[in-house]
């Protein structure tokens, strides 16, 4: 926060000497804000403006196209009712429970696996340059590309199960992608495959950035490797955990293509996530009010999770 004063280093000398000089100084003062202004304005309009627009639509009777006459909160009433319809599960119930399962597993496994591989890779590995891109490449591919390959691989009639049967392991059984209760876990598998390498890279960078003096000191104290990681190194990676969490959370929320490419919605719609729900209702079912309401609920949930985090992080920086 000391930086704030740095903004005006020349003000005392500039003040009141020459009008033109003062103009320049004032220009200098305003310039940073002017530079930032377009980006901020764009964000305000095209993110927050559109959020307001979505909130507005959720209280209308919009169907195929936006209607701007406010009606009532029927869209929310319907979502609220669907939230508790579990037998048979409503599409909304399926979507939000899946989001819970997917969100927790996806983020947890990506973090765990990413950290594990990063630690392994940080043991002065020969061929690191060869291995690293292998873990990273899934992030480079869109799911339009890899969805087909994954779909095949998980299909019991074509992929892993059939292959192992041909190789003689005939009792092997793996049909999650065809099973309404397990299909969401195949989405987790593919999602983890795609994102964990990126998380690994973040952790690897974090590990490489740790001050070696700290490590040396603890070794002199006789800590074992395991203790070293548990007590010293992993706690030092806290900022990486938080950054990775932001990246993963935003990817989890936007995981729309993943579900479509891999499962086309799953048996009886059992693989839906809220983003699929929103897309279906807005574009396919022409129930734009319901689609908008679901988007609002998603955003509200995200802000309930993210805003406190942002707040605490940014506050901490201020100290």
């Amino acid at each position, binding site marked *: 926060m000391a930086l704030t004063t740095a903004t005006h280093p020349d003000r005392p000398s500039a003040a009141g000497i020459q009008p033109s000089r003062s103009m320049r100084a004032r220009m200098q003062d305003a310039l940073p804000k002017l530079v930032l202004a377009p980006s901020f304005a764009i964000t305000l309009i095209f993110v927050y403006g559109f959020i307001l627009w979505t909130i507005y639509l959720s209280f209308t009777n919009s169907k195929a196209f936006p209607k701007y006459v406010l009606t009532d909160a029927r869209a929310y009433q319907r979502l609220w009712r669907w939230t508790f319809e579990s037998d048979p599960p409503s599409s909304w119930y399926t979507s939000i429970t899946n989001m819970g399962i997917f969100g927790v597993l996806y983020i947890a496994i990506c973090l765990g696996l990413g950290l594990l591989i990063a630690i392994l890779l940080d043991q002065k590995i020969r061929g690191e340059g060869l291995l690293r891109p292998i873990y990273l490449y899934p992030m480079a591919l869109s799911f339009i590309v890899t969805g087909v390959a994954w779909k095949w691989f998980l299909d019991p*009639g074509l992929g892993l199960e059939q292959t192992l049967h041909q190789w003689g392991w005939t009792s092997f059984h793996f*049909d999650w992608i*065809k099973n309404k209760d397990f299909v969401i876990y195949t989405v987790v598998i593919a999602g983890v495959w795609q994102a964990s390498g990126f998380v690994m890279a973040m952790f690897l960078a974090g590990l490489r950035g740790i001050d070696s003096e700290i490590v040396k000191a603890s070794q002199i104290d006789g800590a074992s490797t395991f203790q070293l990681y548990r007590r010293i190194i992993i706690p030092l990676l806290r900022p990486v955990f938080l950054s990775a969490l932001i990246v993963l959370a935003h990817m989890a929320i936007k995981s729309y293509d993943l579900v479509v490419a891999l499962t086309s919605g*799953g*048996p*009886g*719609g059992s693989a839906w996530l809220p983003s699929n729900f929103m897309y*279906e209702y807005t*574009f396919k079912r*022409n129930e734009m009010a319901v689609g908008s309401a679901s988007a609002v609920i998603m955003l509200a949930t995200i802000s309930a999770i993210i805003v406190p985090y942002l707040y605490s992080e940014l506050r901490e920086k201020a100290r």
Partner: protein
Amino acid sequence: MMRKLMMAAAMLATTALTAHADDVKEVQMLHWWTSGGEAAALNVLKQDLATEGYTWKDVPVAGGGGDAAMTALKAMVAAGNPPTASQMLGYTVLDYAEAGKMGDLTETAVAEGWDKAVPAALQKFAVYDGKWVAAPVNVHSVNWLWINKAVMDKIGGTEPKTFDDFIALLDKAKAAGVTPLALGGQNWQEATMFDSVVLSTGGPEFYKKAFNDLDEDALKSDTMKKSFDNLAKLKTYVDPNFSGRDWNLATAMVINGDALVQVMGDWAKGEFVAAKKVPGTDFLCYRFPGTDGSVIYNSDMFGMFDVPDDRKAAQIALAKATLSKSFQSAFNVVKGSVPARTDVPDTDFDACGKKGIADLKAANEGGTLFGSFAQGYGAPPAVANAYKDVVSKFVHGQITSSDQAVDELVKAIDDAK
């Protein structure tokens, strides 16, 4: 670094400065027919228009049976920049017409005599508020069985006339170790099959009441319950890996003799034709048992948008070419469907096509031509998808009994109305 970025910016500027193309003589066409046979058929239209001096601006967006294309269409229309025409289905046309986005082809329609040639059932979707807003391209029919003849001969089966016959036939195939029923476990395929099951179980009157008029008594009747029970029976003849399978892979199972029969719309015939199979010798087309005499249809339409006046000439040319007898015949021979006008000669069609044309004509005259609920010709998308949800949840076990299925159906349809 900076210099490179400057170059990029300069590059952007050059692309930006290219002047507007002259789009007056241009037909912009949004569609999801991107694969071999359909694209070839559409090329006929492109060439027809080329001879009249119109260029074709292709806007193909494949995937999800038109889902992605419909999203793109909505964005184009929202931007106030609609294509000349777009491939559309049933109630979607009416939704856009209601929102005031469609053009008016009535003059052309009257001059070309579409009112007489196009079946009234199709006009319900092509005409809104007395104005022609779309040009129907074809009529698909949903209540068909597609059977591999070699397998049929092997098990000694004959054409099933009733639902019980059908079950007996499936049993024979099962006993012979062939997958009896090829089904793709996606909601629209399951619901498309269920359309036929309901027509077979309840008869034409019942189908119309339940699935076109959405009559609540019919929807919660015992007949509907029995239809769900029949669907459950059919499901026992499906292989365990059916879930999520694409429809054309299910058709391929029949073509290759891995399965006996598929219940599917006549677009499946396009697959047999593409695989060089001949009706009567390689495969058989029967009406779904108990539905002979009725036709459950859906139709691809070219929705015509409200374009600026200078683009209207191109639009009219496209509409005329679409409903010309020569294009109707050429296109539908390839696509597996039948012409959208009843006065097109059936000479170029194969046996199944000829039967389809005759059936359509009879159903049109006899009042047994019904819109497919699953394909969006029975009710608006919100309701149709609610229906597909229920059928699919029943097939995949989230809904566990036919009693529950009927309750859910009534509730879901009521909710979406």
